[in-house]
């Protein structure tokens, strides 16, 4: 039993590695076509700097980028696991971010309480906003793909309205970014620079966002929820076979609502690392697009927390390379090409490997049964 599983895992990993290598090869062709050398590009991507401080900064950047991507991937995965396509992560996290940033700026409490409250508000807003498409789906049968796409646009506009209107904060003279009021310092999430110091590295510039801890925690919780609880089982069952789930007493409406709301609540966290760790306010140049990237990350990670973490780190690593590539005079958009081809090739590889491993499983089952039935026949004779 264990070897079979191990084999499945190894096969998957091998497929992923081949896919990444293929994607690198394809991108190399593009780089060559652009008149640059793929070797230089690779060197640039892996060049984290000469000094320890630079290496630390690079690592911190990758992690800081990976954290929101990881959370976004988790949010997407919850829905995708039961074939619920929450394309609306984008709107949910934006709205959650602005409301949480504003609410958090309105009071001062001891750090842990203040931060917890902000996080709760963010999850609440994200979850409530995701409730809209969920309710529309279960009561009116509205396809969630469209409704969430529409709600994304609505969220962008709502956020723009709020940040210029009721939620606007004071600005220094000469600042053109509109933003919510600054969070009090008690709401600033402490950074994790001590981790680097523990390894004898200098602290990274910009700091390693402390929200990493929350992300890991959320990842573990989501893993436990999806893999070990009854709710997770029901999500999985609904995804694998909706009509069997229904006949087994899983209430599909309740599942749609709870999965969507959970997905939205997690989505609410996506903006938090940035707001609590860096900007301390929601501003008009808030990082957008993480919701869509989250879809790619979730798919790359096969909708499983560990896979999503790896995918998020890979994306973070690639995104960091944007600057070094430019130093090497290579168009940075190569990264987008690498990301796109990796996603496509990895899912193709997944498809092939899972088909192969199912074949193997069937064959093994048949082989084993054959030997047992032969044995029985011999005993009978």
């Amino acid at each position, binding site marked *: *039993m264990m070897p*079979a*599983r191990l084999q499945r895992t190894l096969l998957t990993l091998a497929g992923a590695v081949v896919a990444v290598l293929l994607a690198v090869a394809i991108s190399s062709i593009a780089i060559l076509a652009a008149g640059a050398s793929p070797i230089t590009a690779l060197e640039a991507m892996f060049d984290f700097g000469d000094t320890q401080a630079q290496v630390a900064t690079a690592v911190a950047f990758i992690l800081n980028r990976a954290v929101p991507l990881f959370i976004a991937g988790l949010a997407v995965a919850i829905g995708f696991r039961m074939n619920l396509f929450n394309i609306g992560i984008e709107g949910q996290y934006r709205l959650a971010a602005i409301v949480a940033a504003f609410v958090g700026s309105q009071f001062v409490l001891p750090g842990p309480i203040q931060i917890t409250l902000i996080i709760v508000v963010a999850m609440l807003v994200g979850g409530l906003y995701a409730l809209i498409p969920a309710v529309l789906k279960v009561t009116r049968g509205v396809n969630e793909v469209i409704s969430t796409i529409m709600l994304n646009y609505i969220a962008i506009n709502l956020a723009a309205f709020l940040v210029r209107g009721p939620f606007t904060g004071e600005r220094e003279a000469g600042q053109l970014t509109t933003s919510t009021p600054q969070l009090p310092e008690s709401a600033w999430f402490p950074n994790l620079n001590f981790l680097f110091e523990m390894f004898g590295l200098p602290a990274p510039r910009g700091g390693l966002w402390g929200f990493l801890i929350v992300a890991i925690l959320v990842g573990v919780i989501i893993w436990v929820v999806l893999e*070990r*609880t*009854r*709710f*997770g*089982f*029901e999500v*999985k*069952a609904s995804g*694998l*076979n909706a*009509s*069997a*789930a*229904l*006949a*087994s*007493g*899983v*209430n599909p409406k309740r599942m749609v609502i709870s999965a969507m709301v959970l997905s939205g609540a997690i989505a609410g966290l996506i903006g938090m690392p940035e707001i609590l760790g860096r900007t301390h306010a929601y501003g008009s140049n808030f990082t957008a697009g993480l919701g869509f990237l989250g879809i790619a990350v979730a798919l790359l990670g096969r909708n499983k927390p560990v896979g999503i973490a790896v995918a998020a780190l890979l994306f973070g690593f690639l995104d960091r390379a944007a600057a070094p590539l430019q130093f090497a005079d290579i168009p940075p958009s190569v990264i987008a090409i690498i990301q796109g081809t990796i996603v496509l090739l990895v899912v193709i590889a997944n498809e092939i490997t899972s088909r192969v491993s*199912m*074949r193997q*499983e*069937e*064959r*093994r*089952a*048949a*082989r*084993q*049964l*054959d030997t*047992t*039935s032969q044995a029985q026949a011999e005993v009978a004779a």
Partner: protein
Amino acid sequence: MSTSSDTLAAAPPAVELEGITKRFPGVVANHDIRIAVEPGTVHAIVGENGAGKSTLMKILYGMQRPDEGRIRVHGEDVNFRTPSDAIAAGIGMVHQHFMLADYLTVLENIVLGAEPRKGGLLDTAGARKRINQLAETHGLRVDPDRLVEDLGVGDRQRVEILKVLYRGARILILDEPTAVLVPQEVDELFANLRELKAEGLTVIFISHKLDEVLSIADAITVIRRGTTVAAVDPASVTARQLAELMVGSELPTPETRESTVTDRVVLDVRDVTIQRGAAKPLLEDVSFPVRAGEVVGIAGVEGNGQSELIEAIMGLQTLSRGRIVLGEDDITTWSTLRRREAGIGYIPEDRHRQGLLLEAPLWENRVLGHQTREPARKGIWVNRAASRKDTERIVAEYDVRTPSIDTLALALSGGNQQKLIVGREMSGEPKFLIAAHPTRGVDVGAQAAIWDHLRTARAAGLAVLLISADLDELIGLSDCLHVIYSGRMVARLDPSQVTPEQLGGYMTGAIAEEQS
């Protein structure tokens, strides 16, 4: 010159299969099969589930390619790559499962792939004329402009045959065409087949129903475990002999021994009506009790409300009127989950659709439907250890042939999948069990085992509602039989008194309603 019988003998067989071998990963579906089908005859092929009949026919129809062997059609070697090649060679196939696009019209389904064109367009008028003509000559009446979605099974079967005739096929393959038909419909079909035969068409006919086979076939080939084991003359063989050839051993029968019926009503269905909009009710005033230790059988042609009845009891359909009482509780408004928790077990009619998570391991399939109960659950958690242990128990007790409980459900054969489901639904001491087609598509050995389990549970006081298309099974297992027709219970019969023919009469509405 030669006599007419000489000419007949000289004519090459319509189809000749020689040494056909086909391997699937882990299975040899066909092994050195040899069959010769004479033109203008009905040639039956019989064999157990999984014997390889469908595979062989798919090979003949170009849907699958043989690993070894030769196919000759009218004496000429052929090599079919796709069904189009086979169609071009005059072969048509009606599949075991309907191959119809529900949201296309009958006409569209029939002409698909062989569309008549006029000026680049689909010539619907021409097609309609041709279909009506075919329908007229062969007595296969269907309305070409209806959506297939709205048709009953009998009509669908006719559409399937029309599809084949429309292509001008001279060789017809019918893979279990009678599985979903009632006796009267079967007779109609056979009349059609005889007519086709008279017109010189060749029919290859597959069925599990041996008396049917004996009544229609001119020649019979028996397949066992992928190889041809006998070619017999229907005139010189009995159904029982044929069956023993198929199985290679003695036959089990689904007979219930002494009655275990008590007078404690476990499930009471009262005046259940389901009506959607202004249409004809799907179920109308259906009432019956099921007592502890009793098997209540429901006979009926598919599509007469059985599915709705099951779904109503499972809480998957809301009632327009009526009540369902389980023991002391009125469960009419309960959720499916609560019903299951209260002790209703459910062997669904389509195990792949409603019974299994094919891509999950067996032990997770054990949890399905029991996710809120011991031993599968512990608080908010799934109790993995206990579930696995209980799966081991089911595998042992119900003789589920599997390498391990971590095997994915899709790797099991249909019979073993079904045994797992039966084992699961019997665990947790249910009070009441819905068994919908519990042995459909299951081979003889597994069938006997499942019947045994049902009987044992019945003796232990389980109340069972049995829905089946297999009339022998219904008559053999039930303590009491109801016939459902057009959403209404039209007869209550004593299984020890009734014959399958009578039952068929009620099921088709041929015998008028009887007061019980």
